[in-house]
């Protein structure tokens, strides 16, 4: 919710780049050192004033916005990027007969008593694919980011796709050329409901059906389980990882069982002998397919970081490689699951076959066969 201490200094609608009038309102927040940001309609199609969300003009990772020659996206201002995405998304919706953003609150409670499998982008996802394909009719499926790729089959398409990135990567939603990786042709995304924020990358959102796109904010703080988190995420939709928000979405939708696959919070790697120094070993990542953005942002810029990481779990000639950022995410995510499982009443299990996430770990078949005893706690009717 917008703070009462917000002071608008520009309440005039701004022209959208597609010729539409887009209501972007800039403001100061006196409580937060006069940080400036944008007021965004929070998907209320009736346009009521309450429930405005705030996006601050924070640049949390400036290196990602450097020039394209440095691997960035060439935009130095995240606020500008979010503004443009919002303009483009709204213009596209209106051009397709929508009044505005369709509120994702419409999905709340829609799947009471059902099972949801969330496929994340860890390299172990391929291990679970045979079972997921064999038992696909037994559960709802939600994909995030690149995990959409393995389910682009008419009989295996996910029910939901969730992403929050303001700059997505084309191969999430496109067939690509080999070996350049250039986008070739868009996936057939008919029938898949997208959940995202108005600031999501329009190059991704526009490939979905406009009337199957649901918009809104999925901040974990709304679950109320981690006060610090609530403060952190209340205003900044990007404060948590994509997968970190997914259990909250599942809980809001009323699912009674949540199973996670591909939630590794780790990379596959192998250890090889250094060719010149007998005392040294080399740790090399072996699975980058689902982790290309990680690969680009970390490994490509600093190849040495791989050799500094410690393999935490050995398996044959394959090991799982972790590092502090991933371990931190895993720890945080297990806390989220703990809340959803014990407080929210949504039975949660991690069926990822390897990785660093430790929460009710079990094989996928066993998780799908598990009979939940109790109904989840009734969730709130709206955010």
């Amino acid at each position: 919710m917008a703070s009462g201490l917000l002071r608008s200094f520009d309440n005039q609608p701004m022209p959208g780049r597609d010729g539409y009038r887009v209501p972007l309102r800039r403001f100061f927040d006196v409580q937060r050192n006069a940080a400036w940001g944008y007021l965004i309609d929070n998907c209320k199609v009736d346009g009521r004033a309450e429930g405005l969300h705030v996006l601050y003009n924070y640049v949390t990772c400036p290196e990602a916005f450097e020039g394209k020659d440095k691997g960035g996206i060439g935009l130095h201002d995240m606020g500008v990027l979010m503004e443009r995405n919002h303009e483009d998304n709204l213009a596209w919706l209106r051009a397709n007969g929508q009044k505005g953003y369709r509120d994702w609150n419409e999905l709340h409670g829609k799947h009471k008593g059902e099972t949801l499998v969330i496929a994340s982008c860890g390299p172990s996802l391929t291990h679970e694919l045979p079972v997921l394909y064999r038992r696909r009719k037994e559960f709802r499926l939600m994909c995030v980011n690149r995990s959409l790729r393995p389910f682009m089959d008419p009989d295996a398409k996910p029910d939901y796709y969730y992403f929050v990135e303001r700059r997505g990567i084309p191969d999430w939603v496109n067939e690509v050329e080999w070996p350049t990786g250039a986008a070739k042709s868009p996936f057939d995304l008919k029938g898949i409901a997208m959940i995202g924020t108005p600031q999501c990358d329009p190059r991704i959102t526009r490939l979905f059906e406009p009337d199957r796109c649901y918009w809104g904010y999925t901040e974990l703080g709304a679950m109320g389980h981690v006060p610090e988190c609530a403060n952190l995420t209340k205003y900044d939709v990007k404060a948590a990882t994509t997968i970190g928000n997914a259990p909250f979405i599942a809980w809001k939708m009323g699912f009674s069982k949540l199973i996670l696959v591909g939630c590794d919070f780790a990379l596959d790697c192998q250890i090889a002998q250094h060719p010149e120094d007998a005392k040294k070993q080399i740790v090399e990542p072996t699975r980058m397919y689902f982790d290309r953005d990680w690969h680009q942002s970390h490994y490509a810029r600093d190849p040495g970081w791989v050799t500094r990481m410690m393999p935490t779990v050995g398996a044959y000639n394959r090991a799982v490689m972790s590092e502090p950022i991933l371990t931190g995410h895993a720890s945080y995510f297990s806390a989220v699951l703990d809340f959803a499982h014990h407080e929210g009443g949504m039975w949660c299990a991690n069926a990822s076959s390897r990785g660093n996430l430790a929460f009710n770990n079990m094989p996928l078949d066993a998780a799908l066969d598990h009979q939940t005893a109790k109904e989840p706690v009734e969730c709130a009717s709206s955010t």
Partner: protein
Amino acid sequence: MRIVHVAKTPVAGAMEALSSAIRDYTEHDSRAINSGGKVNNLEFPHDLVFSDSGIFPALARADAIVFHQNVNHQSQPFRDFLDGDPSKKCLGFYHSHPDACDPGVAQAGFPHFCIAQYQSLLWRNAIPIRNVIRFDRDDWPKRDAERARERKGDGKLWIGYAPTFRQSQKDQTPGSSQWHHSKGYDVTMPILEKIDKDFPGLVEVMVFEGIRYDSCIKGKALCDILVDEVVTGSYHRNTLEGLALGIPTACNVSPEVHGVLVKAAGANDFPVVHATAETLDEKLRWLVGLDEKTRRRMGNGSHDWMCRHWHPRDIAREFCAHVAAAPSYGEVAAKAGA
């Protein structure tokens, strides 16, 4: 049964040819995954490439995964699909000398195949499989000598030769992978050049290299005589293509390879013009001296032989029967563990 073939390279189009024949002639489904059809300057037909999203449903639903040539069952992400569903079958298929292959699948005790050429003598536990040539497809060029002559316009007799690489065999160890691979280019070309000079205005030697597979086949179809390989004692796809096109084809097949071949084909003979490095010149002069009808009769006989003994339908059915009889990945892995 759903079969998925995996290789890193195009394997001269052999994997795609087998996979598509299985789809066309059996009740089984088959897909082939590799890095596409291009290698060096050549281009072969291909099915799925590694970056296609279609590889995931194919591998997830596969009943059998066949690892060709230079990839093994430990390679990711393929290993995940086997570990995730041990009821799948895991097999190997080798198209080359062991030095040029990743023998991991064979060494781990999984059933494996090799092509019924000289490789059968080197992969002792492999099941020999005939190399599929898709001469049954509609786009396979029809041999018509008169039309070919019209198209060429010069009235010359064409002798076709398609070396894989211009490598010299002189520095290679006899029997090594490179020795087999070089196919006697440095020995064969001088003979062909001599024939070209000795029959001015009558004979033209056509060398096919570095072009798309379909263009290469169309070019070969315009030839009157083809030369495969006369040095190592084995035949190659070039010979099979020549026979299927109905063109007299010169090749050197050693007694050992001949034994492998006739056993795999269920035949008593192999209708090539047997020639060695020493006799190629003589055999070519003989072929050039034959009248058109005789050459055509030879070619028609070889095409008939291919239909009887080397039809993709029969090869696909034989291959699938072997796959169906293979133990599962889990059974072999448990046995190896015990």
